[in-house]
Structures are given as C-alpha cells and as structure tokens.
C-alpha cells in the first residue's frame, strides 16, 4: 500500500510539474513559438538479461527509428517522440546457441522549462517532467531438439524528472538530455506469452524496484536553418527487481533530418 501511495504521489508531482511548465507558456515571457519535426534512423545495440526468458546475458544489434516533435513557446519546451526497433541478440556464452529477437517500441513525452529565464531557442538548461513508455516483445529461441520459441513481454511506463542542456557550437547546436524514472507501472511475463492462458504480472513500482535512466546527445549542424542534418546518440539503462529480474542497456546511434517551423533562435 505504501508503494502504491508513493507511486501516486510521484505521479501527482510529475503532473504538477507539467502543469506548471505549461502555465509558464502563457506568461509575459512567452512570445516566440517555434517547432521542429525530426526523423532519424540508425543502429542500436542492446544488452539484456530477462530471467523470465533465460538466466543468460544476451547482446546484439539491430535497426532503430525515431520520429520526434518539439515545440518551444517562450520558456517552455514540449517534446513528443515515437520510436522502435528490431534487434537480434545472441547469448554472451559461446556454448549456448539460443537467440533472442527483440521488437521494441517507445513513446516519450516531456514538458520542460528554461531555468535561466531566457526565452526562445536559446542555449541553457531546461528542467521538467517526462512520461516514457516502452514495450519490448522478446521471442526467445531455445536450441532444444524441437527448436521451440517462447515469447515474453515487458511493458514499462514511467514518470520522472528530465533535464535538457543546449549549447550553440559554431553554426550548429549540441543538446544533451537526461531523464530518471521515479515511479511507474510494469507489466512483465511470468510465463511464455505464447503458452495457453499465459500470464503477465502487473505492478506499480517506485525507484526501489525500477532503477534506470535514459538520455540523448544530439548535434544539429545548422542551428538556424529550416532544415538540418542531426546526429543522435541515445541510451537507456534499466534495472527491474522482481521475482524474475530484468537488466537492460540499450544504446543507439542515428542520423536524421530536422525541419523547423516558426522564428528561429538569434
């Protein structure tokens, strides 16, 4: 019960943060409105151990795609992105030939506010709250005589603080972002998903059971142009403690294009 209360409190805190950030957009500072759309594709590296599927560590690479939308109004920055990827993982133990095929989808929404009082597409630090949801389907191929494949799912939705730092470098702009979940909801397979009457366990969690962080480092070559190439590095690390633990580290490198609308930064 205490865990549920803590999760509820955290959720309320995050919602209040978002409300405050949005309220600021109507302040006298709010003048310029700009938005940008981005698309990027690249390669992702996943390392994971999901004890629902196997006691072994698995690692491998695959494709990664991310669609993003950001809107900046006055001192408020809103972000929304949708991504996904497919990866093929192999056991880290050479003696074991089993493999995993991951299908991952993610949703990120955040509201941030410039903390140094500057408005518009300016350098500086922003902080706010983010909502992240991630669903991973794992098809685990066992190398037994009948070559069976068992499917598992891990769904995680979290709320937590997020910080973004931006700095103009030459004609481009470097941006770094870091988020940490403090509460959330997890749905994890207890038994294979493709078994009859399969079961997934759901629970509300706090930072005691779900620890991790996610972040991104991006560089847009032309900060003031309508269109600019963008280079993106992202990572997400997760440690979920339950009867069947999950540990995961995902990193990706992507190249894409960003299109901007509205007045640009000075």
């Amino acid at each position, binding site marked *: 019960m205490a865990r549920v209360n803590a999760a509820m409190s955290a959720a309320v805190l995050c919602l209040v943060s978002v409300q405050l950030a949005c309220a600021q957009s109507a302040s006298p500072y709010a003048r310029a409105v700009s938005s940008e759309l981005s698309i990027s594709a690249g390669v992702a590296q996943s390392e994971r*151990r999901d004890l629902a599927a196997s006691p072994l560590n698995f690692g491998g690479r695959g494709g990664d795609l991310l669609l993003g939308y950001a809107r900046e109004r006055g001192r408020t920055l809103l972000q929304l992105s949708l991504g996904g990827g497919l990866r093929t993982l192999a056991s880290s133990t050479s003696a074991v030939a089993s493999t995993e095929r991951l299908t991952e989808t993610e949703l990120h929404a955040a509201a941030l506010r410039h903390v140094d009082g500057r408005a518009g597409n300016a350098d500086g630090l922003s902080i706010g709250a983010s909502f992240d949801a991630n669903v991973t389907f794992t098809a685990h191929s066992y190398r037994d005589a009948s070559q069976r494949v068992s499917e598992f799912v891990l769904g995680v939705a979290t709320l937590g603080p997020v910080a973004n730092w931006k700095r103009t470098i030459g004609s481009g702009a470097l941006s770094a972002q870091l988020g940490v979940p403090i509460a959330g909801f997890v749905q994890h397979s207890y038994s294979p998903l493709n078994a009859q009457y399969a*079961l997934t*366990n759901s629970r509300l969690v706090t930072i005691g059971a779900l620890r991790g962080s996610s972040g991104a480092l991006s560089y847009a070559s032309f900060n003031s142009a309508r269109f600019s190439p963008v*280079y993106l*590095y992202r990572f997400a*690390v997760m440690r979920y403690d339950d009867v069947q633990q999950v540990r995961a580290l995902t990193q990706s*490198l992507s190249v894409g294009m960003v299109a901007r609308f509205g007045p640009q930064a000075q």
Partner: protein
Amino acid sequence: MRFLRSLTLALVLSGGCAEAVLGPTPAPDHGSLFDELWREFDLHYSFFELKRVNWDSLGAHYRPLAIASANDAAFASVLGRMLAELKDGHVSITPVGVSAVRLMSRTDTTSAYYSSSLVFSKYVPVSQYSPARHLRYGMLSGGAGYICIPDFLGNDWAGELDLAIQQLAKATSIVIDVRSNSGGTYALAAQLAGRFADRERIFGYVRRRSGPGHGDFTDFTAETVAPVSAQRFRVRVYVLSNRRSFSTAENFILAMRVLPTVTIVGDTSAGVSGAPIVRELSNGWTYQLSEWIEYTPDHRPFEGIGLSPGVYVRATATDMLRGTDAILERAVALAAAKAP
C-alpha cells in the same frame, strides 16, 4: 563527421560496461547450475502441493550429489534422478549432445497391448491417409467409420478431420482412436472436438502458476469446446483411450466426453496434464516442466490419475496373443447396438 566518429567509438567502448549493468554471466559449475534448475522449478512447477513434494528436501538431498559429480554425464544423471521424483511425464532435461533424461513412469513401461498394425490388418483392411498424413481412416465391419489419430503434433490440420469424415459419409457412427497417442499441440484438441460440438461447453479448467509460492495460481480458467464450422457431424462417436493416451490426447478425451453424442471406450488415460514450458540453463542444457494444473469440469485434477472412460475395457496380453483388439471390438459392438 569527427563528432559522429567519436560517438561511434563511445558506443563500441561502452559495450564493455554491459556486464556492469547486467551482472556477470552465471557460473557454469555444477553447484550453480543445480541452484539455477532448482530455483526455476521452485518458481514455475505446478504440482508441488498436489503431489505433496517437499522440494526443499529434494534440493538438500541432491545438491551435494550434484556438486560431487565427476563429469557432466554424472551431473545430468543426478538432475534426472531428482526430477524423476516429481513423477511427471512432462518433466525432462536435455543435456547438450545427449538425449533427454526423462522420468520413466508406470505409463512409460506398462504395455497397453495396442497394435495399430493389428487394427489395420484385421479390422480396417482398406484405409487411407489424410492429405498431410495426420489421420488414417477407413470403414469397420458393421458400418462404423474408423479414424486413427496417432499424435497431435503440428498446427492447423484440424480440417483434415472434415475431409476424413466426408470420405466416411456412409458410416452410421465414427470410432476415433487416440490410444497410445503421445499428445502434441494443445489447441488441436478443442479444434478437432469442435467438429462434433452442438454448442459451446466447458470441458475443463486450468490454473497456471502465477508467483513464487507453491500455491500461487491464477483463478480457474475455463476450457471450452465450441462448434468450429458450419459443418457439424451428428453421428454417434466412440473415442478409444488407453494408459498411453498422453497430454493433448487427454485434452481431446476431456473435450469429447462432455459432448452428448460421444462415448469414451477403453482404459483410463495416462494422467499427464501439465502443459509444459521449456527453459534453459546457463550451460545451454534445456529442460521442460509443467506449469499448470488442469481440472475436469467438476474441478478435479487428473494429473497422475488419468481420465476414466465411460465404458471400461482393459486390453490384455492374452488379447494380443489371440490377435484381438478387445477395446475396438467393444466399440464396434456398442456402435452396432446403437445403429439405426
């Protein structure tokens, strides 16, 4: 581009920190592997309470033996002996490069005195296979049709039963033989039984392990059989079973016996009902274990007991020596008595 190269290098280098995040790869020594197997059964196996198995005690007894094993073959043998204590036909372990170590139960070693060769040479001399050879069928004397289902392996072949019954259109009743059927794909049981269903009926219940406690289970989930196509076969059906009708064959018997036009004839089924899942050890060995308990419609588990037939007939060695299939002959007699 220099920036991108730096990021690529960072990605490659950070691969080395994966172990810090995931933890070390589990140790492959016999003690660690034993603990892994013991714990997975502790978390997932469904019959500890029903079979009154003290898993802690078995672990304490077999762990020193496992650690003292001189080699992998001896280690596999110890694990096999411990798992045999569960007396579960769905439990097995498959060491890499060695055939599966599995429980040898009474149903594995007891002869059912059944011979498909005898059936097709004496009782169904003219027979044919369904297109994918999942069924073999023909006519019995007296006007009954006969369909043999040797196993339920594979997927999506229930339509072959429609074809077989169409070929047996002149039959006044149908005998479906699942004796010594080793089981297979669970879904096929209800799909095949649905060919004879008049309406949706509950034929059993299942409860799946849902947590670390040996008594942690989901609620009862109903298993149902329902008409699966516009075509419904209304003839009288006799399903033949014996002590070697395993697993999905028992699901089929369970589904058929709730239908008003069906009579089960023969011996009690094997009582192997656990719906196995497969797992792996960190040395690559795979194993399977039962993860649910299946119940009859009146909520009685039949694991280790079997499903009793409506008409009990026990085949004997004497029958075999005489070249007689007593179970089939009884079904034919019942069909003749009910024939219009």
